[in-house]
């Protein structure tokens, strides 16, 4: 059921059309049904009982990056993204789930199935491939090899420091844990250097964001509750995340979704106050003078879930500027979505890669050799669309870890 307050949102849309031009999907497809204004109209008609939850409607609803550009630009303050997320879950509840999303649900709400699936994927037997040629997963080389260890298998649960200046919990997220363990190691190294004890609570689950975006709010409840139990602790200084999407989930989505579902959001709100993106915690820290230069022309891409969702824009840039040797160059439209959001590369691969190409164009124009971005999904999307180009895609914290040198 869509919450009553959200239902009233549709009447805030005065059809001014300001959401059209900035919407990456509308800009590409250029028909009204693919625009935020069009989707709001359709949702209104469905809520009023004037049209059906047809397949075509579902397809239009899922031709969306959930990048929140429309929400940010809406003069009347309509929470377009909330409405679309709630509608996605309404579809799941009313019509059931198709096998692809059911499978995603099964993978992400269980602690053992995802690694198993990933290793099978690595063998390229396409046993579980969601879609011909496009699995929505990182490039083949980044998939874990059978027998290789995940981040949480590689590092201890507690990473203490002598003379601890603070204690943080580290929410690793699936992407860092399985695909990009170097990001995780960098986070631990940097925080340890700053004198912080880093704890990776065992048993942490997927943040649940991919499930919620696919409409599986109900099945994601288990993830939300489990993670709240592990991370909503009074005895730590902060909960650190390196993934923009996980950060948005922990800081914002948990509380909003619990509220929209009529559940108690108090623990989620408590947790939200403690969650910090790694760039935020580093912005307040003295990195010392011993950084060694990491020469390179770097451009920064704002992940939607970090910039628009969390309002974190300057911290990662400032972090990069503080690293000697880094020449930071702004790309045009740095905060425009790269096309990798809300499983669009999986739902509508052609649309996603066309939007990705615009981002690549902006990157090329900067002549940067490195793209930094604190979101694994952006990293995957940009990396894949860059193809064979000699541009590295990294997390800002990886550059910092490099600057800190060995030990």
């Amino acid at each position, binding site marked *: 059921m869509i919450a009553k307050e959200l239902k009233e949102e549709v*009447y805030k849309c005065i*059809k*001014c*059309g300001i959401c059209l*031009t900035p919407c990456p999907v509308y800009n590409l497809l250029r028909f*009204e049904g693919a*625009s935020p204004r069009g989707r709001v*109209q359709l949702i209104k008609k469905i809520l009023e009982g004037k049209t059906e939850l047809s397949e075509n409607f579902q397809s239009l609803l899922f031709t969306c990056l959930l990048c929140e550009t429309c929400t940010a630009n809406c003069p*009347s303050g*309509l929470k377009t993204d909330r409405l679309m997320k709630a509608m996605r879950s309404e579809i799941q509840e009313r019509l059931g789930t198709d096998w692809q999303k059911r499978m995603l649900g099964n993978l992400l709400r269980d602690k053992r199935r995802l690694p198993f699936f990933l290793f099978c994927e690595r063998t390229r037997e396409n046993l579980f491939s969601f879609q011909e040629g496009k699995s929505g997963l990182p490039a083949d080389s980044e998939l874990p090899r059978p027998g290789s260890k995940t981040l949480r298998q590689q590092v201890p649960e507690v990473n203490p420091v002598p003379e601890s200046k603070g204690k943080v919990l580290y929410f690793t997220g699936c992407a860092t844990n399985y695909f990009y363990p170097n990001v995780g190691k960098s986070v631990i190294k940097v925080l340890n250097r700053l004198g912080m004890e880093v704890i990776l609570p065992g048993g942490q689950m997927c943040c649940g964001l991919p499930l919620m975006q696919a409409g599986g709010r109900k099945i994601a409840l288990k993830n939300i509750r489990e993670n709240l139990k592990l991370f909503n602790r009074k005895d730590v200084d902060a909960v650190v995340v390196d993934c923009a999407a996980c950060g948005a989930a922990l800081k914002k989505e948990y509380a909003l979704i619990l509220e929209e579902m009529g559940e108690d959001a108090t623990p989620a709100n408590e947790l939200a106050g403690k969650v910090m993106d790694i760039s935020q915690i580093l912005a307040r820290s003295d990195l010392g003078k011993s950084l060694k230069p990491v020469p390179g022309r770097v451009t920064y891409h704002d992940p939607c879930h970090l910039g628009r969702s969390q309002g974190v824009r300057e911290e990662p840039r400032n972090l990069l500027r503080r690293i000697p040797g880094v020449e930071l160059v702004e790309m045009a439209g740095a905060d425009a979505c790269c096309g990798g959001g809300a499983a669009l590369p999986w739902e509508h691969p052609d649309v996603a890669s066309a939007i990705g190409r615009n981002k690549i164009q902006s990157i090329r124009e900067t002549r940067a050799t490195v793209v930094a971005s604190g979101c694994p999904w952006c990293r995957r999307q940009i990396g894949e669309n860059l193809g064979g180009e000699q541009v590295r895609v990294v997390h800002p914290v990886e550059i910092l870890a490099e600057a800190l040198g060995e030990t």
Partner: protein
Amino acid sequence: MLSPDVLLKFISIVGPERCKTSREDLLAYSYDAYVNEFLPDAVLLPKTTAEVAEIMKVASAQNVFVTPRGAGSGLGSGSLAKQGGVVLTFSMMNRIVEINTANRYAVVEPGAVIGEFQRAVEKLNLFYPPDPGSANVATMGGSVVMNAGGMRGVKYGVTRDYVLGLEVVLPSGEVMQTGAVTAKDVTGYDLTRLICGSEGTLALVTKVIVRLLPKPKTKRTLQAIYNRLDEAGNTVARIIEAGIIPATLELMDKTIIKSLEDFLHLGLPLDAAAVLLIDVDGEPETVEKQANRVAEFCKSQGARDVRVSQSEKENEQLWVARRAAFGAIARVRPTCIIEDATVPVSLLASAIKKILEVGERNRVQIAVLAHAGDGNLHPFFLCDHRDKEEMARVERAMDELVDYAMSVGGTLSGEHGIGIAKSKYLPRQLSPASLSLMRGIKKTFDPQGILNPGSFLEHRP
């Protein structure tokens, strides 16, 4: 309903992807920024003039209604299929064909968004002045057939003043050129200007040639803040009377200021009764002088404070805010009907007074926005279209306002057009002879009456 046979013909022209007939797609083309909704039978998205011509050949042969649409940001149902048929939307014909710096003109396709076009020419140090509030949404084609005005009207005029020529497709499917790329052209009747402002009833615009100006070297934005709305109104009349011509001269009352502040948090003065947003542009020395003169002038007319923006970014933010006014007002009430009556600028203050009176008498909440410099009022009637009784009061208030505008020599619509929103008032301003001549012109262009049926000339409430 369209016959399957006709649909097949359309599909053979644009392909199945660009001929939309699903219920969802039709619903998504059933609205514009006004309150009424009309469901089309099909939506066509052509990419070339040739496709548009083919579509019109089929439409005229089969007597199918066709209604052109740009971005659907209009305020009078002008781009809706009021009597069914096809909505032909230009969103995929959005290229800038040519920007000619040597002769200062540009050729654009109708679906190009005005704001994007403006930014493209400004990169080349050129300037396209027409600047409707919806410039970041509305299309060049839409602004031509509606003869859009906007915020720079006071100094630079309206769309009509910049259109040099057009490529159009007639209802018969014939392609025709009007005008020329030269600044001067008196060859024959001025069909360009006839089509400009025709509300999509005469022909489908498939290319627009506009003249460009050199970009003003510098610009300053001033905010003059008032404790009384009438003093702001008076200042406007005095500025114009004094022979000062700012690039823009916009008035916003406290309701508008509050909703914009809620949206963008720019630090607008929430305790003020009105703000005048004033741009001066030109050579740096003159701009400096003019800005000071305007500031002094506003203070002498009762402004409690005048803030001068310090950077291009600050200018930009203020104008982003101003452009958002229509949307932002939905924070107050879900429906906003904008009046567009325009009066001689010397009467601005009394017109505002009249608006407030009318609102009070009919118990309708009205927020006042105005392109004040050219007397173009935009009272926002704030309501909820689901409330029939309230809507009746809104209608009464509109009637009274029209009476007033007519009584002082004003016009029904300064820039939004008539559409179906104001067609019932048309005989108040146009004589029977004038109406009959207009209907004759329509018949000459469109003898079958297939283009934008149900629009302003035919609508009888």
